[in-house]
């Protein structure tokens, strides 16, 4: 398999400009600016079937084409490096090991959408990433790859590295914009969408780190090549993050469309200690659980949607048969309760309520109506909120209750409130 995003990871000092230049570094940016037009670049990316790798899987080229070129306001590119989706840790590697690939992708993207200013929003905990990326930006400015008239062309571009400060919700694109503007990470009401009214009220594209890092290879080697690498409607490879009960947790670059079974067993070494698989989260904590009978699913956006889950951020968390699923639901519910921004009532009150309910079930303090009510409460959050966080709570926690109902019921039997004839 041809490595794309991870191609430099094993090279010593891969993050330095001099190393990056040795492998055709910034050639794609030069090609795009001097030999192509913005429209051509967008077209190429569209044809490549590159889809957003932060979680939503939106076709990248299409997103770029939403920027209204006749709007006189300045355009912005914002890189979403908030990487907070539990089970996801891939962007960290790009930041630390190949920041120049990201910068080159930024240049090409800005050229395509008519932007001259990009912000790289990196979650505040990623201290090393912030340092590495800032160092790369400094190198790039010094060597004329960023700034005024880069690489001897007439194209101006500025890049600012911006830290988050510990809030998962800032991974939601409009919450990220609010955070960038110096406010609490409260997602915005939509429409208008960021392509029309985004950062500072101007047209903005927000893309994930990995997505943008795929752009230079696409320009260098062509859309057709990239599209062929993946599967239909989902081109290229992606970085799958595997964690939990596996022998070799880590980041694995594999083609879109690889099966989950292959990823867990052939690449991540399968389940340690001779245990069996019980459940697996396929795309970050927001993705509904899959059971062992479902792991032959192809890991691409459309296939996972068809099976009732989502490809999401590519964060695969594996649970073996020692896992108490009510406990796992509690851990997930606790995450949502802690990270709810609190802006709208269903999520704010509902996420806390669900957590307390599942916690009671787990600790054996629940009454029969707690389990009877739980699915209804969980369901009521999604679909009624300002952003997809509410939907994530519903889908995620809902999948535990639906697929492992018997474990929840067993907790009732053991509950201190259990009726004798239960």
């Amino acid at each position, binding site marked *: 398999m041809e490595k794309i995003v991870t191609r430099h990871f094993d090279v010593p000092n891969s993050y330095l400009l001099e190393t990056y230049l040795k492998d055709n570094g910034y050639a794609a940016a030069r090609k795009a600016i001097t030999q192509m037009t913005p429209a051509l670049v967008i077209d190429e990316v569209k044809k490549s079937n590159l889809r957003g790798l932060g979680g939503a899987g939106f076709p990248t080229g299409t997103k770029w084409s939403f920027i209204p070129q006749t709007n006189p306001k300045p355009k912005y590119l914002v890189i979403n490096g908030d990487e907070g989706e539990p089970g996801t840790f891939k962007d960290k590697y790009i930041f630390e090991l190949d920041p120049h690939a990201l910068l080159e992708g930024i240049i090409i993207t800005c050229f395509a959408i008519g932007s001259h200013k990009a912000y790289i929003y990196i979650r505040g905990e990623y201290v090393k990433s912030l340092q590495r990326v800032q160092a790369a930006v400094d190198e790039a400015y010094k060597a004329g790859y960023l700034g005024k008239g880069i690489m001897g062309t007439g194209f101006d571009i500025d890049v600012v590295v911006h830290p988050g400060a510990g809030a998962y919700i800032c991974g939601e694109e409009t919450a990220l914009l609010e955070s960038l503007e110096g406010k609490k990470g409260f997602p915005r009401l939509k429409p208008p969408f960021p392509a029309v009214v985004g950062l500072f009220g101007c047209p903005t594209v927000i893309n994930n780190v990995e997505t943008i890092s795929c752009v230079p290879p696409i320009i260098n080697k062509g859309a057709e090549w990239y599209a062929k690498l993946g599967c239909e409607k989902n081109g290229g490879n992606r970085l799958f993050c595997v964690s939990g009960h596996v022998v070799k947790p880590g980041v694995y670059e594999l083609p879109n469309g690889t099966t989950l079974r292959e990823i867990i067993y052939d690449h991540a070494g399968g389940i340690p200690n001779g245990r069996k698989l019980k459940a697996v989260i396929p795309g970050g904590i927001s993705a509904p659980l899959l059971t062992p009978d479902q792991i032959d699913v192809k890991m691409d956006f459309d296939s996972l949607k068809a099976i009732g889950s989502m490809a999401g951020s590519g964060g695969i968390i594996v649970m073996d048969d020692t896992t108490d699923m009510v406990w796992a639901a509690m851990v997930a519910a606790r995450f949502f309760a802690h*990270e709810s921004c609190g802006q709208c009532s269903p999520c704010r*009150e509902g996420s806390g309520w669900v957590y307390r309910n599942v916690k009671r079930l787990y600790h054996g303090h629940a009454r029969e109506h707690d389990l009877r009510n739980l699915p209804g409460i969980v369901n009521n959050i999604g679909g009624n909120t300002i952003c997809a966080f509410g939907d994530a709570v519903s889908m995620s926690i809902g999948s535990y209750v639906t697929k492992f109902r018997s474990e929840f019921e067993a907790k009732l039997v053991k509950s201190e409130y259990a009726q004798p004839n239960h």
Partner: protein
Amino acid sequence: MPNLIIDGKQVEVPAGTTIIQAADKLGINIPRYCYHPALPVSGNCRICMVEVEKQPKLQIACYTPVTDGMVVKTNSPKVLEVRKTVLEFLLVNHPVDCPVCDQAGECKLQDYYMEHGQYDSRLGDVKVKKEKKAFSIGPTVMLDQERCILCTRCVRFADNISKTSEFGVFSRGDHSQLDVYPGKKLDNSYSGNVVDICPVGALTDTDFRFKCRVWYLSKTKSVCPGCSMGCNITVEWDKMRPHQHKKARVMRLKPRHNPEVNDYWICDKGRYNYKFIDENRIQHPQYNNDLISWDRAIDVVTDVLKPLKDLKRTNRIGVIASAQLTNEDLFVIRKFFKENLKGSHVDFRVPQKPGDSDAFLIKADKNPNTAGALNILQPDTDVAAIIQKARAGEIDLLYVFGEDLVSQFGKEALYQISKNVKLFVYQGSNVNETCNYAHLNLPSSVYAEKEGTFTNCQNKVQRIWPAFSPLAEARGDWEILALFAAKLGQPIVYQHSPEIFKDIAASFPAFSEMTYDKISDKGMVLKA
């Protein structure tokens, strides 16, 4: 202009109108917490969700602009279900404080719950505890963080209307707490307004705390007499339980919506300036140190007035009217003194202490009817001259309407006046120092006891309605003059204020074609 259908009813509205605004126009009241017509949209409560044809998900009505041909349902089963859902979520952590909460009876949680709630409660959980309960955040407002549903109306008010930014929501999730900035107090000139806009009992009025259950309150429309802005208000009063309130009738004032005058707001001074309606009133006619009957009081006045009229010595009459009086009062003063007692010196322009003002509602002129007094009395003398004459013994009858001359001219001047004027009459509603110098004190009504009109600084004529009859033996200002007129054989034939206003409209071009009906409760501007 887009044309749409809401619940089967058609309505046409300007482009950019939201569904909730279009529904309001039709009189269809979609429930709302965070939406307020005077504040930027927040869209966080989610209770205004409605069904829009061709849209798979429900949409919030406060934020969705109408489109031509849109079909909206505000009470379909889906919508009713989601309202139950949102209410349930809001009640998860809401303390059931109703028995001790001032908001009860005008609480949007109660109201919508009675209409839409899920009566089989599923709430068996311990509620999230928050830091501040029954906490004073300033001189006028108390905060209860647990009752707060985080609609952020108060935050948006402080940021956009009072522009004082005291409020914020701190922390996140269901531990979010509304508060003022630590150490800061809610102490701006418009602080009381946040109590009006708070849909629940999170922000309550300290002045009104535990005073009166709102279902005992009667409401009467009026206009604040505190300054020339003439903010529209409702006087809210209870007469059924005087034993509870030490005989006070008015419990509170609330601003009344008038988009051209005060919008939804009122300043704190105006809001809390109602105690004088019930306290410290002049209750009975008093002649020197004796309480007398009205009959006797009428004689006291006419005994001095009649000879002055007959002997054509009306230039020895001085009248200090007031811009606190209604147009109707002033018109009768004009008729009685300037026209029927030609030669009397009539003015109202007492020296004013410079009053505070701001760029919003507070005006430096602390009188509600200066424009009316100017137009109707058209004075050709001045108050200082009248006072001078009175001190010098050139005035036999000095008639003062409600102005506290001691504070304006000093005790020495008033002493001289009381010595050198034959009959010094003070006709007013509340006791002040001037009463000590007047020979005859006559109790008159306050604005809340009158039917009449004020003319504000925008030259807008606005109506006031009487909430109740005058206290004790007080009578309306023009009604008292009618008593004298009757005794003098020149009856003033008015029975009620509307008749007076008819004559005002007939007599002054600025008021021409105005009627009480046309003025209604929104006001009408004088003709240029």
